[in-house]
């Protein structure tokens, strides 16, 4: 919270906190985030635990969902729709894209609603509010890992042996998390103020899927549109995942630059916006 300055005087040993109206936009107070790291951990743990409590399949859902979606989409878009996949088996091509997309859509819908969903908490307890969108972004990573395990099975089925490139996967995973957090900061803070966001969000996520190369290859996008298309950061994530998982998959890394710039701007703007809105969360929510 930008309103606080922790004064670490040697004596007296009691921590001193000064409460005052907030000033400045860029006081990120990451120290407070570090202090509350256990809360982040426990919220992530809670989200993961609660999600599969009292379900018959339990954690298997994290694998079942993407696999089932992959099968249906394969029938609809490949078998019936004849959508190409750059010469790779469509199920593998599709699943490699669905893998990060499932994560992004899930983390986004949870992160976006993380503040409003925890309204009682916000109006009753102090903690750095950033923890809520942050932990909602981290929790679905567990599902991502499980869905990845299912992907290994799929690769084995098609007799595909991963190369060293698979080691770069965490990097693209982090990129996906950063994008989601960047968008989540904006969406969650806007949602506190404008309840329309609750209606817009699912639509927004669906649209986002269609402007990302999940069902179709980037090669199907007209050349003249590519530059604009590359502004979508999810393009980089999906292409990165495919590059890391599918041997022989070709990626134009120059396409990554615009999206990295976009991520940076959205993330920095989101942090500033979140921080400035944070002061009024408890009053408005």
């Amino acid at each position, binding site marked *: 919270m930008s*309103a606080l300055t922790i004064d670490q005087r040697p004596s*007296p040993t009691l921590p001193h906190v*000064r409460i*005052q109206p907030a000033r400045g936009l860029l006081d990120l107070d990451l120290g407070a985030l570090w202090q509350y790291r256990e809360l982040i951990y426990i919220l992530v743990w809670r989200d993961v635990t609660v999600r599969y409590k009292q379900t018959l399949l339990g954690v298997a859902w994290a694998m079942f969902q993407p696999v089932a979606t992959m099968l249906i989409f394969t029938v609809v878009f490949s078998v019936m729709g004849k959508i190409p996949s750059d010469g790779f088996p469509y199920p593998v091509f599709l699943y490699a894209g669905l893998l990060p997309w499932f994560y992004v859509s899930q983390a986004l819908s949870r992160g976006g609603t993380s503040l409003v969903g925890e309204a009682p*908490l916000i*109006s009753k307890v102090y903690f750095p509010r950033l923890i809520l969108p942050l932990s909602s972004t981290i929790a679905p990573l567990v599902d991502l890992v499980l869905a990845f395990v299912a992907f290994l099975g799929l690769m084995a089925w098609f007799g595909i042996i991963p190369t060293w490139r698979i080691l770069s996967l965490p990097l693209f995973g982090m990129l996906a998390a950063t994008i989601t957090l960047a968008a989540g900061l904006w969406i969650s803070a806007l949602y506190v103020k404008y309840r329309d966001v609750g209606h817009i969000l699912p639509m927004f996520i669906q649209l986002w899927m269609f402007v990302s190369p999940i069902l179709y290859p980037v090669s199907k996008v007209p050349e003249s549109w590519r530059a604009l298309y590359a502004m979508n950061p999810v393009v980089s994530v999906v292409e990165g995942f495919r590059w890391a998982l599918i041997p022989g998959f070709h990626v134009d890394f120059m396409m990554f630059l615009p999206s990295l710039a976009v991520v940076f701007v959205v993330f920095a703007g989101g942090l500033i916006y979140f921080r400035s809105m944070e002061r009024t969360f408890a009053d408005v929510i």
Partner: protein
Amino acid sequence: MSDIAIKADCLSKHYRLGTASRQHNTLRDHLMHRLRGLTRWGGGRPESNPSFWALKDISFEVKRGEVLGIVGHNGAGKSTLLKILSRITQPTTGTADIYGRVSSLLEVGTGFHSELSGRENIYLNAAMLGMRREEVRRKFDEIVAFSGVEQFIDTPVKRYSSGMYVRLAFAVAAHLEPEILIVDEVLAVGDASFQQKCLGKMEEVSRSGRTVLIVSHNMTVIEGLCERAILLEKGRVAKIGNTHEVVEGYADAIRGLAGTEIEARHDREGLGEILLTRIDVMDRDKHPVAAAITGRDVVIRMHYRCAAGKEFKNCRVSISVNGRKGQDLFVLSTDIVDPKPLTLHGEGYVDFILPELPLTGGAYFFQSYIESNGHAQDWIKNVAPFSVLDADYYGTGKLCPPGWEANGVLVRYRWEAGEARSTDVLPVHARAS
């Protein structure tokens, strides 16, 4: 400087009244508003929202180890003050310096998740309240024992009764070890025995040298635990200092209906030559108060007016108190307690002086009756409400059991215990606890 725990300096909090209704405002409204603004020359000024100061220039100091009570009506700013001190919301102006770790219990059970078990919720809740996992692990057994839900510790809390839920939540909160504890109405929950356990725990906490801030509507709790208190009125400090004085000030401040509008009543029975015009509830010093306090002296003043130029002999003026369910609890009547003849004429009043009001806290009703020479002159049922604030009647720090609010007459008594088995053992005298 080092013995100060909290120092608030001119804390103020400003709210736009729009805020509350704005929370469900939509993006569409916002955009439309902007558009409308644009069409006007110079953009037009958005009409300013009415606003108010929830807190205004609040300054006070709390010494380390002090237990401070905060009282006031709903909307006086108590919760806002606690929210600022616990960093949930920010002040608009002013500063507060806080020395030491703060834990606030603005509501027990915050962050409990119904799908998780009691055990899991202990860890979750503790983390939210700022306790380290290591610390929770160390105190886990103690917390469970305090809550008394050992058997159900691995059951999801959605299957708990509300009592169990609250007990578990309070148990976690009670085992926090901050230097400064902020508590809001925690004791409004749970059954009587658990409330007492909580009260004991709070005393223990305050004795252990920790600083405690308590907001409560229960004057017993405030009087029992706090040496000093603050009375907030409309966002300002109306009174600060000795708890007893502040509590009296609070009772003064709740000016209710008592003593108003009786003249306009038409639901009277009797000849009507003598009319009751007003009832005042007053403290021992005959200052009108809106509420009496359990165990304190109270004066009930009945104002009357007689038909012009007439004198009424052998009069009886009486007032009875009805409980919550309308049952008669006791009657105060001029003739019973003192048989001297009472003659009324013109206008005047009769005071009933009740030492140590023996009623539990709550809302009661008066019933008034005036007669002369055996003829009913004026009889009004439910003539006025009578509010009583609960306080410590027996001086033991304990309240009457729940369910007796506005329903119970307190009597002085003592008890002894004896053993049936042997005749030569003297009864054991109950010790005052």
